[in-house]
């Protein structure tokens, strides 16, 4: 206590952030936890006395809901395909841009970053035209090459891949910037030493650059993973979960139950399962990271 009083000043500075954070981020999470044990619906919101406690009923029901199970599988599909692709592509692009010395490469940063700052709804509208089976540019190009139409958003598997392509295009920019910053933080002396020892470009990349980007890769993989686990906007705007619920993500499932059907308790139970899954997966990643040796 004494030390707390002596060191009041830092708490004073972080107080606004802490208060806002707990009021609008942490408190709602606890409220949602409470809601997940109740049968809260619209009537309950208007009149709190009509809410009744149902224990684990919502959880039991949600894990046996076939659409929820399907949405988990879909989300895993997004994560398993999407996360490695984002890391590999954004790293590759960052390396290329970093490698290039001409002025034009500065412009490329903007080109790749642009999708990240564009409104997702506007993007989705344009892409749904690109994917359009009848008028779409993609199918038009395929036809010009004498290839058959691809059912971009109409086939259950293809629709997932199409959404991944779109989200990938959006995600590359931000992660590329992170990688670029990390790349420029690597001291030039390492490369000079390696060159004196006769290491070629490939050796320099695999023995110096990639190992030293370890923290950046770790950061990108965790944030991307969480992002993909909460994949929402793209299926919401482009496919609304179809065809045959094949693009429904967990977040979309939660949204639909909460805000379309006003089943708040049920939706909160689903969101808690997602919350716990994200925490577990993140902890596993931290564990793996800790095991690796440090440079």
């Amino acid at each position, binding site marked *: 206590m004494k030390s707390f009083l002596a060191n009041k000043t830092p708490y004073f500075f972080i107080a606004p952030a802490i208060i806002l954070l707990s009021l609008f981020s942490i408190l709602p*999470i606890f409220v949602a936890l409470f809601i997940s044990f109740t049968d809260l619906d619209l009537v309950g919101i*208007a009149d709190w006395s009509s809410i009744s406690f149902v224990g684990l009923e919502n959880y039991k029901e949600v894990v046996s809901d076939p659409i929820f199970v399907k949405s988990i599988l879909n989300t895993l599909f997004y994560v398993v395909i999407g996360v490695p692709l984002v890391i590999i592509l954004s790293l590759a692009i960052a390396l290329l841009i970093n490698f290039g010395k001409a002025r034009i490469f500065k412009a490329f940063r903007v080109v790749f970053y642009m999708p990240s700052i564009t409104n997702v709804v506007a993007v989705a509208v344009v892409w749904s035209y690109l994917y359009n089976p009848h008028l779409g540019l993609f199918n038009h190009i395929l036809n010009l090459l004498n290839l058959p139409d691809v059912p971009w958003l109409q086939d259950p598997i293809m629709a997932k891949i199409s959404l991944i392509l779109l989200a990938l295009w959006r995600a590359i920019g931000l992660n590329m910037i992170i990688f670029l910053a990390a790349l420029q933080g690597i001291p030039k002396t390492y490369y000079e030493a390696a060159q004196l020892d006769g290491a070629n470009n490939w050796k320099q990349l695999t023995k110096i650059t990639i190992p030293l980007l370890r923290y950046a890769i770790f950061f990108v993989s965790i944030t991307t993973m969480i*992002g993909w686990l909460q994949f929402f906007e793209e299926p919401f705007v482009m496919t609304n979960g179809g065809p045959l619920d094949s693009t429904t993500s967990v977040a979309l499932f939660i949204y639909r139950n909460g805000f379309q059907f006003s089943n708040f308790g049920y939706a909160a139970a689903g969101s808690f399962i997602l919350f716990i899954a994200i925490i577990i997966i993140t902890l596993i990643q931290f564990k793996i990271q800790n095991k690796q040796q440090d440079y």
Partner: protein
Amino acid sequence: MSKNMFNVFSKKFAAAAMVGTLVVSGALAGCSSDSGSEKDGKKVINVWGMGEEAKTLPKIAEEFEKENPEIDVKVQAIPWDQAHDKLLTAVASKKGPDVVQMGTTWIPEFASANALMDLSDQTEKYPELAAENFYDGSIETTKYEDKVVGVPWYVDTRVLFYRTDLLEEAGYKEAPKTWDELRDAAKKLNDRGDDKYGISIDTNEQSLSFMLARQNGSKLIEGNEAYFNEPEFVEAVEYLNGFFKDGSAPVDLGLDIVQAFKGDGILPMFISGPWMVKIINDQAPELEGKWATAVLPAKETNTSTLGGSNLSVFEHTKNKEEALKFLAYMSKSETQVKWLEMTNSLPANKEAWNDKQLQENQYYKVFGEQMENAQPMPVIKPFEKIAQDFLSRFEKIYRGGADIQEEMDAFDQEAEKILSK
């Protein structure tokens, strides 16, 4: 690192936080909204309008203000897809508009939450609100249990839109009158060649199958009982699926309906509501004289769906009298005719239908005729959930080739489970 991670959590941890925030915002209520405020001695009422109509609503509110100079109407336009969320917040915080436009299918949900004022004892003071002024089907959508929670504003009903020239080539001088004729016409039109179809069936349109089932004599839902696996309903689904099966309706065309309707007529027939009249006239003026509307083809009946919007007074309003005055004004037949001129919405007021425009316009006349045979979707709280469940099962049928009877058995069970809650 961990701080950055927390940013991700707090930024995007969507649903849990959103639901939580909703409740918290309810608890924190009192810091928002200016309902009940007065401006220059005028009472201010807030009106929430939704979708396209809301853009024209201020014009008619001006006319109302001219007649009632002591009231100032503030219109807020809300897109339909955000309206539900916004109303939820209003209910939770008990702070909202004074008058709100309600889609007919939302009435039971918000009425059960006691968010809409009971208007049943107001008809003496405001005779405009009385039930006998409106079509019975519309009145049905304003009732919840023994309360009247809204007043019909405008209605829409579905009719058949078709290309007269193309149907004539296919041997139909008049619109198809029965299910069999519609089927036959669609097939003949489909035979015109590749990339040409007979009819458009909107698979996101939840009321279509329910409407056809009713034409086949299905009761749909009665109390907690669902009739979705009875032959009447199953036959309707089979009939609808038939169009996909023989290719006379495309599954994924990806074309805007007007684009497909004009020119060669990729889709020369479709079923839709009154708003399409203006859209076709605006976007395909060259089609004039080549298309028409007709009442729906019949099986046992040709019952159509009755939709539209109602106006309700928000339960927690502080300007009850002013809000009711606005409702009464909007329900007058003259106002409704004016509204028709402004937006092409069909009046719910029966008297307004005697207006020349509606009587002489060939398109509107058809809607009037169809209104005699139109029923709203079941006015029950979980209807949205049941309808969504149906749509996903129907998708399994037309896309995945699932067995219709089996799907409908499962659907019936699920629906009864939802109903008994």
